[in-house]
């Protein structure tokens, strides 16, 4: 029933958009959503991670991504840490290594993947609605709609979506799915979290994870900085991080703010319908003034001529 009602509202909003030639207040889908109450999340404790990269292996395995190697090859390849990596067309998640200023012998390993924002920039950028924030928390992508404009990549504050540039006919945007096909089933856990040997990742209800994160910070004085990354960043994300050093030192941007990305374009979108009402009114006004002025000028001229003739 709820689904029907939403579809109905969506259709109404769409009709409004067509008649007004733009996008009026049809933002109910993404931008007014203050997070699904029961959405899942993952809490990543970067102080625990040992950098075995098994999560990378499991991710490729589950999502059948190209370039898969043996699990052993992942664990043994340490040279790969010498360069910072990002997600790409064949990789949904990467583990990067950062020097640890508190203990040089124990570098910090940080797993990177889609943060699954509450109010995703990618979803609000997409002009064919290929992205969906699911009630489970996952932000999923529907390649059957994608035109390939790559606005989502530009709009992502975490630089996550990648593109299959080398596929000439059916390129797709690629990004972590939060293993939506696993977590939507009862008891399902993302492949990366399931394989982690040291429990770096805790999967659960996001609200519980927030409490857990703050409890960990409270119970272990000195172990963590007092900041749960993702709790408020860009309005909140489903994935959350704990760290022993400031997040800017381990590859996170500290300047993202707490405003959801879609909010930035909201004031502009709200201008669309007024323009279609106010501008034609003004234009017709100007046009009538002009006509009237011309007419009066013509009449005055005629009167003047008539007067002259009478004389």
């Amino acid at each position, binding site marked *: 029933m709820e689904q029907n009602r939403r579809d109905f509202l969506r259709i109404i909003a769409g009709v409004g958009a067509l008649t007004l030639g733009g996008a009026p207040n049809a933002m109910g889908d993404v931008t007014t959503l203050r997070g699904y109450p029961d959405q899942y999340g993952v809490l990543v404790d970067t102080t625990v991670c040992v950098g075995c990269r098994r999560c990378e292996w499991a991710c490729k395995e589950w999502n059948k991504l190209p370039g898969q190697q043996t699990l052993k090859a992942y664990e043994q390849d340490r040279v790969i840490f010498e360069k910072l990596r990002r997600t790409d067309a064949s990789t949904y998640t990467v583990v990067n290594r950062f020097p640890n200023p508190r203990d040089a012998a124990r570098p910090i390993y940080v797993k990177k993947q889609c943060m699954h924002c509450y109010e995703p920039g990618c979803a609000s950028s*997409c002009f064919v609605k290929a992205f969906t924030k699911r009630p489970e928390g996952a932000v999923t992508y529907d390649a059957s709609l994608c035109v390939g404009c790559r*606005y989502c990549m530009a709009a992502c504050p975490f630089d996550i979506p990648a*593109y299959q540039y080398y596929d000439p006919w059916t390129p797709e945007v690629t990004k972590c799915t939060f293993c939506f096909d696993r977590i939507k089933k009862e008891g399902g856990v993302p492949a990366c979290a399931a394989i982690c040997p040291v429990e770096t990742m805790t999967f659960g209800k996001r609200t519980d994870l927030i409490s857990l994160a703050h409890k960990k910070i409270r119970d272990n004085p000195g172990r963590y900085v007092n900041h749960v990354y993702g709790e408020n960043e860009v309005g909140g994300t489903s994935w959350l991080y704990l760290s022993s050093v400031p997040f800017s030192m381990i590859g996170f941007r500290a300047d993202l703010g707490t405003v959801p990305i*879609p909010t930035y374009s909201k004031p*502009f979108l709200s201008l*669309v319908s007024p323009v279609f009402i106010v501008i034609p009114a003004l234009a017709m006004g100007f046009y009538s003034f002009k006509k009237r002025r011309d007419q009066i000028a013509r009449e005055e001229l005629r009167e003047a001529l008539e007067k002259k003739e009478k004389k």
Partner: protein
Amino acid sequence: MDAITAAEFRPTWVQEKLLLGMTFKDYLRSNFTPFNAVAAAILAVGIPVILYRLIYGLGPSTNLSDNNPWGIWIGFDMLCGVALAAGGFVVGTAVHLLGMKEYGFLFRPAVLTGFLGYLFAIIALTFDLGRYYRLPYPMVVSWGVNSVLFLVAWHVALYLGCQFVEWCPAIFEWLNMKKARKIFVKATLGATIFGVCLSMLHQSALGSIFLLMPEKLHPLWYSEYIPLWFFMSAVVGGVVMVIIESAASHRIFASQIEHDEPGHLDGVTLGLGKAAAVTLFAYFFMKIIGLAHGNTWGYLNTGYGYWWLLEMLGFVLLPALTFTYAVQNHLVKLVRAVAVWTAFGIVLNRINHSIIAFNWHLPWELRYVPHWMEVVLTITVVTIGILTFQWIMNRMPILYDHPDFEPEEH
């Protein structure tokens, strides 16, 4: 032309309408000009590049990357193309809404330039789209109404239609279809008003695309005022392109023009120069207000700050002052020179927004520099656009009033 003399030659419909009243042989011969030779050379390289892009994909033909999803096909072809094609909307407003009749003769060339500018911006865009064959998806398959780009897609498409309607009277005069022409002359006012709304919105929406990227665009270019900046600079772009285009056409197609007063174009050019000066000053002050509003003064004394100052002083304030000087002293040639200068300023602004000040936080080796094929494809699309413009100008009554028809009234 051996058998019949020129006087006896009666052109067929095809010869009259398409071959400029010549036989096919003569028409072919008439096309061997230096200009066409250069164009042919560009196409000889450019068409294979286009095919290469379509067959082998974006990877081998561009320097786009996961960090830099947009290059010059968006930054130049789309953003500059649309901004500089605003002439149709600017002249339409002046002539049909504000009743500035002395600018009326600029309406048709401006609308044609605008229409072709938009058309070829869209054509260039399709090469940038990963799945270009899905171009109509935002219209017919799925509506992403939260997206500024959705608005751009719809408005650009609708506006293309508006400009086509405004251009139709010329087409029907060429085809000698009186009734159809009359209908479209009547539709001009409506199309102009609708076009003004659409232009205001999509010109500013092209800037609003960047509103979602506060963390990637340099603070000197990022602001809540981006929509207004893009709109104002597009008005400037439209005005200066009308100055440039009218000067060029009146020289290249001089044989088509029989002016009552020879100084008419000069007077109008000075008027346009005045409009450009006023708009540029307003734009400049809006940019300064953006600095104050965002409190980004501190960035001025950095590398990006000097670059910003170069754009703002060298390509906005200085042209505005020069326009003022030129108009006051009736220096028509200077007005035209400053128009070209200002057009480069608009291009610089759009490239700054989309490429130079974009991803400014990334290390140098991760930044985008266009691939040569991206440049060649851009030049090719522009060339095809100019050839199309030339083809139409040689056939349709764009610069002159068709002798068989009454002037337009609505």
